[in-house]
């Protein structure tokens, strides 16, 4: 039984993972690692915190890596 917000987060990770420089397979592997580490959480607050951390990570860290890589490659090519 997966928490719908957890599933939503996992889908978000995979969607952003498509553009990730290291590749979708890498992202999927790492995501499963992190998600499984937290699979036994029962406290509502802790679950919320973990999901919020995940969302922030996707929105800030992963997007930043993708944008930076793109910027560097394009500047190299068209600089």
């Amino acid at each position, binding site marked *: 039984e997966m928490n719908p917000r957890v599933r939503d987060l996992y889908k978000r990770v995979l969607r952003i993972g498509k553009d990730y*420089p290291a590749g979708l397979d890498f992202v999927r592997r790492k995501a499963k690692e992190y998600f499984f580490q937290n699979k036994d959480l029962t406290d509502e607050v802790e679950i919320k915190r973990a999901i919020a951390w995940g969302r922030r990570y996707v929105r800030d860290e992963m997007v930043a890596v993708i944008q930076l890589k793109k910027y560097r490659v394009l500047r190299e090519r068209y600089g």
Partner: protein
Amino acid sequence: PLVGIKRVIDYAVKIRVKGDKTGVETAGVKMSMNPFCEIAVEEAIRLKEKGIVKEIVVASIGPAPTQETLRTALAMGADRAIHIKHDALLQPLAVAKVLKAVVEKEKPDVVFLGKQAIDDDCNSTGQMLASLLNWPQATSASKV
């Protein structure tokens, strides 16, 4: 403003030539919005956030999957999307002529286009469109 965007092979993909040497392999290859078109969309959104422009319309010419590219632009903040369905590759002059028709229908105040497409690097569509419309143009803009 009207923003023209193009669906191209993703910048990170290693381009391969088709086995029969008739062109570039595009089947099953990752496609996305041309990075310079992305910049055009972002600039239009920035202007909208500042209140300088009101409604952003994005337009693209291409086969059915171009819809995804248009949806990405809508997710970025565009208000409406126009999909001109066409399956063959188009040269800049043809694109400019089609965009001219769109401009005459939508009547935007300004048109933003990406500087060049990363697949053909023509850097021509904007200039041609301006010329066909008899509008002033600013090319290779780094700031609006």
